[in-house]
């Protein structure tokens, strides 16, 4: 029979990935001066497990390197070698390289042989060298290749069962092997006597009469394994299953379509009259509730704790702070906060950039910190929390804070519009301009000015926003607000001219119908609306979106929105209703349009554009500031 091992590869890859993550986490958290036996055991076991699986599935390089690591870890575990910070660093590098090898196994690519051999040698030399050959030479105890053998117990009494060794477990005679198969028989093995009393014995191997192996009577009665298909085995005792992301995404897509269908039905239902109308309406309401529940349940499958991203940062912080000679403590909070898997993956780059920035630019050198009366070790905090329909991720440090003068000077140099009276928040926003860097010198860590604009764009692509708060001498915070999910949002549908647009509810503060005296024209700044003592810029959507056709400027409804620091009033013609809409990407179906973050299909089948409120408010703000 031939079994295709490839079907188990995926499971092995996932398993090995988990083990590598475990190893990294353990090594990072370990007090290398005094590691606990538990920690060392766990690191060892992770390496051991990877080696075992890699061997079985034929990934020889992976098993070769993990074997070397495992051997050294075993020495450490048994107190024959010492764990040091340097060894931990080496092991972490090994973990990185193993990740690479694993990726190569996945992609069936060939890793660089010289590099592999180099790695292997490096870790073989790491320890005493003695452990490099841990597979002992074959001894008399083993069968041909020693890969399999049986201990045969002498039975003093048949009914006493198995497992009693009359003789000391001394090396026994080797039984002949069929391709590495052999049996052990102690020299004083007693011949079997009571086959019918519950024990059976194997026939001696051909030519080896001494062999005596015990097996249950049942085994004797059934001459060969039954060939009929057995019942499906009970599921392994895990309470979870691994499902490919594609299948979950397919499910989410289908639910999205269902949401649209449900909206269509609701729309049609409104036009039904007569005795069935009420019953239909009740059913439709129920359908809506069920659809929403289903949607939430399906979305929750895609949710992962943000620890998936956060967990990589202890390593980033450790490496970078070593490199820069700064003492940095990383504090992680709210790592259990869940968000959409798609968001999680795309958060890695921007967060890495922000954390690197914090350590490189934010945290001062130990000398400077001491001089400023701060603890020598700086602190970087990674914090995640859910606030309403948003996930808030914050990277903050207790470093020097952003330097207002330097940013303004640099902005001037880059030809950006600046003035001394600008609010701090506006000054901070400038670092998101392309090509902007105030780093005194360009390091290989950061400061090349290719960063913050990319960070901002990455976050915007996720439907999120990034804000900065900074206090000179006390530190800076970068606050990222993200929608809970990428696929569906709660929106208000509004009419502007002949068109319908969706405004995400998360931006909307309130809606109001202004009185005649509330709207004023300010020279050079367009119109503002007076709301409870505040003057907010008024953004006429009809004009801003460049619509044509019939439009009665007299019917004015204002939606007060908040985007980041800025509030504004969006002027629309009518409020149509509140919906849950399935976001369809405009970029992948058409192209990127300023002020529009996506599109959706409405209940009546029409396509409505989803407005990018932050973009619109920001555009109007900069237009007014200019």
């Amino acid at each position, binding site marked *: *029979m*031939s*079994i295709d*091992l490839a079907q*188990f*590869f995926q*499971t*092995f890859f996932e*398993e090995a990935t988990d083990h590598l993550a475990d190893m990294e986490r353990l090594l990072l958290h370990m007090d290398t001066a005094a590691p606990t036996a538990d920690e060392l055991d766990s690191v060892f*076991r992770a390496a*051991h*497990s990877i*080696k*075992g*699986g890699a*061997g*079985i*599935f034929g990934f020889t390089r992976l*098993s070769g390197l993990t074997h070397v690591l495992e051997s050294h870890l075993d020495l450490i575990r048994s107190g024959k070698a010492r764990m040091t910070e340097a060894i931990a660093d080496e092991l972490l590098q090994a973990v990185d390289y193993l990740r690479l090898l694993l990726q190569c196994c996945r992609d069936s690519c060939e890793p660089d042989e010289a590099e592999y051999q180099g790695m292997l040698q490096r870790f073989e030399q790491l320890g005493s060298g003695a452990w490099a050959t841990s*597979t*002992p030479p074959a*001894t008399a*105890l083993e069968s041909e290749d*020693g*890969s*399999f053998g*049986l*201990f045969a117990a002498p039975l003093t009494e048949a009914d006493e*069962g*198995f*497992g009693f*060794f009359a003789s000391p*477990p001394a*090396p026994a005679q080797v039984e002949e092997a069929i*391709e*590495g*198969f052999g*049996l*052990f028989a102690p020299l004083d093995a007693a011949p079997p006597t009571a086959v019918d009393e519950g*024990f059976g014995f*194997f*026939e001696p191997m051909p030519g080896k009469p001494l062999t005596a*192996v*015990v*097996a*249950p009577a*049942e*085994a004797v009665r*059934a*001459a060969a*394994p*039954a060939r*009929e298909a*057995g*019942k499906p*085995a*009970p599921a*392994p*005792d*895990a309470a979870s299953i691994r499902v490919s992301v594609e299948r979950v995404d397919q499910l989410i897509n289908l639910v999205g379509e269902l949401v649209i269908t449900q909206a269509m039905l609701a729309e049609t239902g409104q036009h039904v009259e007569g005795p069935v109308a009420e019953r239909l309406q009740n059913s439709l309401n129920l359908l809506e509730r069920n659809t929403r529940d289903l949607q939430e349940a399906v979305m929750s499958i895609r949710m992962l704790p943000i620890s998936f991203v956060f967990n990589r940062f202890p390593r980033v912080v450790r490496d970078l702070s070593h490199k820069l000679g700064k003492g940095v403590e990383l504090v992680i909070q709210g790592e259990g906060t869940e968000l959409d898997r798609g968001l999680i993956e795309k958060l890695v780059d921007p967060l890495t950039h922000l954390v690197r920035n914090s350590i490189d630019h934010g945290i001062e050198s130990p000398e400077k910190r001491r001089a400023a009366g701060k603890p020598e070790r700086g602190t970087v905090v990674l914090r995640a929390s859910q606030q309403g329909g948003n996930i808030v991720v914050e990277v903050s440090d207790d470093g020097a804070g952003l330097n207002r003068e330097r940013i303004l000077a640099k902005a001037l140099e880059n030809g950006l519009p600046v003035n001394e009276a600008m609010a701090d928040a506006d000054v901070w926003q400038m670092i998101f301009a392309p090509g902007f860097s105030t780093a005194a010198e360009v390091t290989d860590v950061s400061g090349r000015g290719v960063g913050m604009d990319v960070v901002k764009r990455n976050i915007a692509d996720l439907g999120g926003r990034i804000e900065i708060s900074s206090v000179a001498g006390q530190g800076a915070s970068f606050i990222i607000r993200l929608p809970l999910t990428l696929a569906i949002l709660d929106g208000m549908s509004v009419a502007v001219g002949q068109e319908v647009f969706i405004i995400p509810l998360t931006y909307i503060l309130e809606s109001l119908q202004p009185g005649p005296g509330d709207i004023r024209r300010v020279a050079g700044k367009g119109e503002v609306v007076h709301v409870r003592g505040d003057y907010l810029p008024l953004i006429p959507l009809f004009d801003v979106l460049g619509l044509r056709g019939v439009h009665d400027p007299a019917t004015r409804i204002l939606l007060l929105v908040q985007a980041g620091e800025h509030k504004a009033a969006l002027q629309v013609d009518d409020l149509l209703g509140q919906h849950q809409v399935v976001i369809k990407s405009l970029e992948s179906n058409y192209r990127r349009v300023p002020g529009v973050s996506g599109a959706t299909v409405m209940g009546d089948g029409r396509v409505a554009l989803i407005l990018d409120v932050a973009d619109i408010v920001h555009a109007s703000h900069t237009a007014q500031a200019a």
Partner: protein
Amino acid sequence: MGKKILIVDDSVSIRQMVSFTLKSAGFETDEAGDGKAALEKAKGKSFDLVFTDQNMPVMDGLTLIRSLRGLPSYKSTPILMLTTEAGDDMKNKGREAGATGWLVKPFDPQKLLQVVSKVLV
């Protein structure tokens, strides 16, 4: 009715592989991820053969073998160790614990079935 084989290993992929191979040969299989879980399963129903890994969390293979041998119904059940170590030390420990034999990892499906056929004639 196929013979029932319990597979104990903390690696899901190895359990899957062993289980699939044995099922393809007409055996019934059950799986456990560590020694303790295996012991619970073994107490709940009887198996004709147990494959166990040595290095596992919670309870290792040798402890499992000793515990199984302490149960009246497992005094004579063949128990094979799946081990990456084939040194005398490990073999002696296995023998002392009451293992029937050992099978060194890595192994392939053919070898696995060959071994099973030796133990479960």
